[in-house]
C-alpha cells in the first residue's frame, strides 16, 4: 500500500483503565486537540507526531470494552473505524488483564483493519508474574504485539515502528480470527451470501455485518434497512437465523458469540501466557479496598473524601476568585475613569469587562474541581464512589456516579453540569444535568443570608436556610424520578462496572485533564456567557431617559453634602432601572407572581436580573430599595425590605430563588454539554414552573394557616 505523502492516521482503541490516555500522551506529547464527535457529546482527542518520514495523526477513540450499539462510546469508536478507515488501529491492552482486553481486539480485527496491540503496563504484568510468549501470541492473534509502559514512555518508539510497518505491509488481514462453531458459521456464511453485492454496505466487511445481525445489533439493522437493496430478505434471513440458533443453544446468539470469543482468547492465552508468581499488585489493591469499601468505614471515608473535594474546589478556589473579581473591578473602574461618560463606557465597563470577569471567575473552581475529579478517576476511586452510592442513587433512577455532580452542585451548578461527563449513559446524564440546578449553589447563599437575616431572628435564620437546602434535595429526588419515568424512560443502566486496581495518577495526566476541561469551558461556554451577560446589561440599561439624567445632574451639583449626592445618585439609578427593559419585565413578572405573594415590581425586577447570576438579586435589591447604599448587608436595605415583605413572603422569595431558572452561565454550560438548545430551554421552563407551583403552595398554605 502506498501511503500518500507519508501521512498516517492511527486510531487508538482500548478498554477504560487500560492506560490508553497515558499511551496517547506519550505518543503525542502536548500537541493535542480536543473536540467533539459530530452530533454526540463524546469527546474527540487528536494528537500529532512526526516519526521518521511519517506525519502521524493519532485519534483517541473513547475507551470501550466492546463494539456494540448499546453505548454511544462504542458506536462512536466503531463508526470511526468504519467511516474514516484509519491506516492502523492501535489497541492499548492492559497486559495484566489480558482476557477481557483482548475481547475488544477480536472485534476490531473483524472490522478488517490493520491492528497493532500495545501490551501496556507490561511492567505491572511482569511483577504480577505473567510471562508472555509474544511471538506465539502474535501469531495466534494475527497482530504484532509491542510491550509498552505508557507513563514512562517505554516502548513507544517500537510501537510507532510496528505501526509504520503494518501500514506499509501487504499482509492479508485476519478476518476470521474467531471460529464461532459449525452452526453459527453456517448462518454467517448464509447471511454473508445475501450481503455480497450490496453496494450500500460495501464499507462494512460482510462477515462483520453478518455477525452483528446475528447479535441483533440495532444500528446495523437500521443501516441494512436504509442502504441494502434486498433489505427485507437480509433482515428476514437474519431473524430466521437467530430463531434457529436460539432453538439450538437456548441462549440468544449474541451470548453464544461472546462465549466463543472468550473461548478463543482463553485458548490463545493458555498457549502463550504463563503465570509464575502470585498477583502482587492486585493483592495490594484488594487490601486498600478492604478499608475504602469496608461495610462500616466505606461510607464515612467516602463522605470525608467528598467533603475534601468540595473544600478543595470552593475554599481553595475562593482566593483566586477574589483576585479575579478584584482585578476586573479595578479594570472596570480604570476604563470608567479613562473613557468619557456614555454608552461606550457603560458597555465596556458594565457589559463586556463585567462579562469577561463573570466567565473567568468560575475558572479556579472548574480547574480545581477537575483536578480533584481527575485524581479520583485516575486513581480508581471513582468506580468505588459509584459502588458505594449506587444503592441510593439507583432508587432515584440514577447511576451511582451521579452523586458527585449533584454534590458539586452545592458549590456551583456550572462545574456540576460539566462533571456529568463521567456518566456514560445519556439518559442518566441528562437527568442529572436537569436536576443539578436544584442543588442550592453558593451564589444563592447571599440572597438567603440577606432575607433570613432581615426577617428571622438569629436563632432560626440558620434553620430557615437549612430548610431551603433540604427542599432543594427533596425536589431533585422527586424531579429525578419523574424525569426518569416520563421524560427519559428506559431500563436503568446496568451497573456491570469494572472496579479497576488502584493506581497512583501521574501529575502530567492530571494537569492535561484539568487544562483540557478549563479550556473547554473558556472556549465553548465562555462565549455564550459573555454574549448573554451583554444582553442582560443592555436590558437593564436601556432605554435611557436623557431628561432624567439632566434633571438629576443639576440636583446633584446643587447638593449640600456627600450624603445627599449619594442619595440622589441612588435615586437616579433606581428610576433608571425602573424605566429600563428589565424594570418593565419586572413589572410584568409582578403580575404573574402576585398569587405567590411576590407581586411587587422591585422583586420581579430583582428576580429577572438574577437570571444573569443569582447573587445579582442582592445587588439589584440594593439598587431598588436602599437608594445608593447597595451593600447587601446594610441595615437600610433590610429595613426597606420589611415594608414590602412579610416573613412568609420573604421565605417564598427565597424558595423562588432556590428553584427558578438556572443562571445564564449554567444555561450556557447545559447547552454546551448536551449539544442542543432543547435541554437548557427545558431546564429554564421546568424550573420556572416548579418554582411558581412550590411557592404558590407554600404561600397559600401559609396564608391559610394565618402566617401572612
Amino acid at each position: 500500500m502506498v501511503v500518500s505523502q507519508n501521512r498516517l492516521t492511527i486510531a487508538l482503541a482500548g478498554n477504560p483503565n487500560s492506560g490508553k490516555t497515558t499511551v496517547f500522551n506519550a505518543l503525542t506529547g502536548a500537541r493535542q486537540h480536543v473536540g467533539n464527535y459530530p452530533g454526540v457529546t463524546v469527546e474527540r482527542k487528536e494528537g500529532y507526531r512526526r516519526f521518521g518520514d511519517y506525519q502521524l495523526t493519532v485519534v483517541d477513540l473513547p475507551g470501550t470494552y466492546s463494539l456494540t450499539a448499546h453505548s454511544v462510546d462504542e458506536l462512536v469508536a466503531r463508526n470511526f473505524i468504519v467511516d474514516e478507515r484509519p491506516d492502523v488501529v492501535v489497541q492499548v491492552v492492559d497486559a495484566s488483564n489480558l482476557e477481557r482486553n483482548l475481547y475488544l481486539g477480536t472485534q476490531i480485527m473483524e472490522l478488517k483493519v490493520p491492528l497493532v496491540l500495545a501490551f501496556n503496563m507490561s511492567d505491572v504484568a511482569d511483577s504480577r508474574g505473567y510471562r508472555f510468549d509474544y511471538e506465539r501470541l502474535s501469531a495466534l492473534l494475527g497482530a504484532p504485539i509491542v510491550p509498552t509502559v505508557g507513563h514512562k514512555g517505554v516502548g513507544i518508539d517500537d510501537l510507532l515502528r510496528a505501526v509504520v510497518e503494518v501500514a506499509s505491509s501487504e499482509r492479508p488481514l485476519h478476518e476470521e480470527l474467531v471460529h464461532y462453531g459449525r452452526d453459527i458459521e453456517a448462518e454467517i456464511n448464509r447471511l454473508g451470501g445475501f450481503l455480497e453485492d450490496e453496494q450500500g454496505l460495501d464499507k462494512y466487511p460482510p462477515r462483520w455485518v453478518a455477525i452483528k445481525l446475528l447479535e441483533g445489533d440495532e444500528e446495523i439493522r437500521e443501516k441494512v434497512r436504509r442502504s441494502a437493496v434486498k433489505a427485507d430478505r437480509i433482515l428476514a434471513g437474519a431473524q430466521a437465523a437467530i430463531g434457529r440458533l436460539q432453538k439450538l443453544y437456548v441462549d440468544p446468539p449474541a451470548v453464544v458469540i461472546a462465549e466463543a470469543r472468550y473461548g478463543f482468547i482463553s485458548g490463545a492465552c493458555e498457549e502463550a501466557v504463563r503465570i509464575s508468581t502470585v498477583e502482587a499488585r492486585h493483592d495490594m489493591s484488594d487490601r486498600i479496598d478492604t478499608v475504602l469499601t469496608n461495610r462500616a468505614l466505606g461510607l464515612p471515608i467516602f463522605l470525608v473524601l467528598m467533603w475534601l473535594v468540595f473544600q478543595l474546589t470552593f475554599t481553595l478556589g475562593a482566593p483566586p476568585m477574589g483576585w479575579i473579581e478584584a482585578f476586573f473591578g479595578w479594570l472596570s473602574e480604570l476604563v470608567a475613569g479613562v473613557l468619557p461618560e456614555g454608552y461606550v463606557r457603560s458597555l465596556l465597563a458594565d457589559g463586556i469587562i463585567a462579562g469577561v470577569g463573570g466567565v473567568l471567575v468560575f475558572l479556579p473552581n472548574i480547574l480545581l474541581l477537575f483536578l480533584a475529579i481527575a485524581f479520583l478517576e485516575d486513581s480508581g476511586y471513582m468506580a468505588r464512589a459509584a459502588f458505594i452510592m449506587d444503592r441510593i442513587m439507583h432508587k432515584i433512577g440514577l447511576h451511582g456516579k451521579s452523586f458527585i455532580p449533584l454534590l458539586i452542585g452545592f458549590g456551583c451548578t456550572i462545574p456540576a453540569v460539566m462533571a456529568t461527563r463521567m456518566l456514560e449513559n445519556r439518559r442518566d446524564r441528562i437527568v442529572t444535568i436537569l436536576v443539578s440546578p436544584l442543588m442550592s449553589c453558593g451564589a444563592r447563599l447571599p440572597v438567603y443570608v440577606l432575607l433570613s437575616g432581615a426577617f428571622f431572628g438569629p436563632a432560626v435564620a440558620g434553620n430557615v436556610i437549612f430548610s431551603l437546602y433540604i427542599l432543594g434535595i427533596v425536589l431533585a429526588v422527586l424531579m429525578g424520578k419523574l424525569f426518569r419515568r416520563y421524560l427519559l424512560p428506559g431500563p436503568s443502566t446496568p451497573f456491570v462496572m469494572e472496579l479497576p486496581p488502584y493506581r497512583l495518577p501521574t501529575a502530567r495526566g492530571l494537569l492535561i485533564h484539568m487544562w483540557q476541561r478549563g479550556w473547554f469551558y473558556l472556549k465553548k461556554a465562555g462565549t455564550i456567557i459573555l454574549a448573554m451577560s451583554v444582553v442582560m446589561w443592555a436590558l437593564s440599561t436601556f432605554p435611557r431617559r436623557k431628561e432624567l439624567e439632566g434633571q438629576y445632574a443639576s440636583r446633584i451639583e446643587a447638593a449640600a453634602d456627600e450624603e445627599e449626592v449619594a442619595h440622589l445618585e441612588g435615586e437616579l439609578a433606581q428610576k433608571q432601572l425602573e424605566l429600563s427593559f428589565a424594570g418593565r419585565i419586572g413589572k410584568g413578572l409582578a403580575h404573574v407572581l402576585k398569587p405567590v405573594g411576590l407581586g411587587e415590581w422591585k422583586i420581579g425586577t430583582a428576580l429577572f436580573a438574577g437570571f444573569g447570576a443569582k447573587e445579582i438579586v442582592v445587588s439589584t435589591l440594593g439598587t431598588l430599595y436602599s437608594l445608593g447604599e447597595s451593600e447587601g448587608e446594610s441595615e437600610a436595605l433590610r429595613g426597606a425590605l420589611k415594608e414590602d415583605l412579610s416573613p412568609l413572603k420573604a421565605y417564598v422569595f427565597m424558595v423562588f430563588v432556590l428553584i427558578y431558572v438556572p443562571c445564564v452561565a449554567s444555561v450556557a454550560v447545559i447547552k454546551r454539554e448536551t449539544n442542543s438548545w432543547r435541554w437548557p430551554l427545558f431546564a429554564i421552563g421546568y424550573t420556572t414552573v416548579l418554582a411558581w407551583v412550590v411557592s404558590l403552595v407554600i404561600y397559600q398554605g401559609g396564608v391559610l394557616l394565618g402566617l401572612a
Partner: protein
Amino acid sequence: MAKGLSASLEDYLEAILTLTEGEGAAHVKRIAERLEVTMPSVTGALQSLAERRLVNYRPYGAVTLTGRGRKVAKRVSVRHDLLNRFFEEVLGLGAESAEENACRIEHVMDDDALERLASYVEFSETCPLKICTWHGGFGRFCEGEPGGKGCEERLQELVARLRPQETGERKVKELTLDRIKPGQKARILRVSAASGATSQRMSDMGVTRGTVVEVKRVAPLGDPIEVKLKGYHLSLRKEEARGITVELQGEPD
C-alpha cells in the same frame, strides 16, 4: 418368583400385603371382600399358602406374611405396579383399563417377558429424555396423528427442558450469584438478564457460562456486590446478580 405358585395365590399374597400395610392386619373377611371371593375359598388358599410357609395362619386369627411370603408378595406388587404404569403412561390407556389389564397379564406372561417389560418401564421412567414416552407423543400417534410429525419440535422442547436439569442430574446445588457470600467462589451455569443491553454488557465483560467468579464484598449499603473474574474486579447490582445461576466451588480456605 416362587415356583409353582398359582395366579390366584399370588393375588392372595398381594392382597395380604396391601392389607397389612394399609390396615395393620389382614383378616379373612377383608381378604374375601378385596378379592371378591367367598370366605371358605380364602381359608383354603391360606392353608395352601401356610403349607408353603408363606403365611402364618391360625383359624379366626389375623393373617401375617412370613419373611419369605413378604418377599414374594413384594415382588408381585412391584411387578403389578410396573405393568400398570406401562399401560397407563407408555401406552396411554386410561387408569381403570390399565389396572384391569395389569391384573390379567401379570399372571399370564412368562417370567422373562414380564421381567423385560418391567425393566422397560423402569428404563423409560429413568431415561432423562423420556424418549420412550415422548411426552404423550405416542398417545397422540394412537389418536391418529401421523408418526414423526412435530417430533423435531418436541425434541427442541425436550432439549430446552433438559438443560437446567443437566446440572441437577449431577447433584449440583444451584444458587443465584446474589446469594453467594463474600470469600466464596462459584462457577457460572447460566446468565439471564432483564434486557438485551444488560445481557450483552455482561457477556462483553466476561460474565459467561463456565467462568469462575469469586464474590469479594458487598457495598456498605448492602448493594451492589463486587466480584472477581478473569483476573479483574467487577461490580454488579444484586438484581443483576439474581439473574446469574451458579454452582458453589468448594469452601474458602
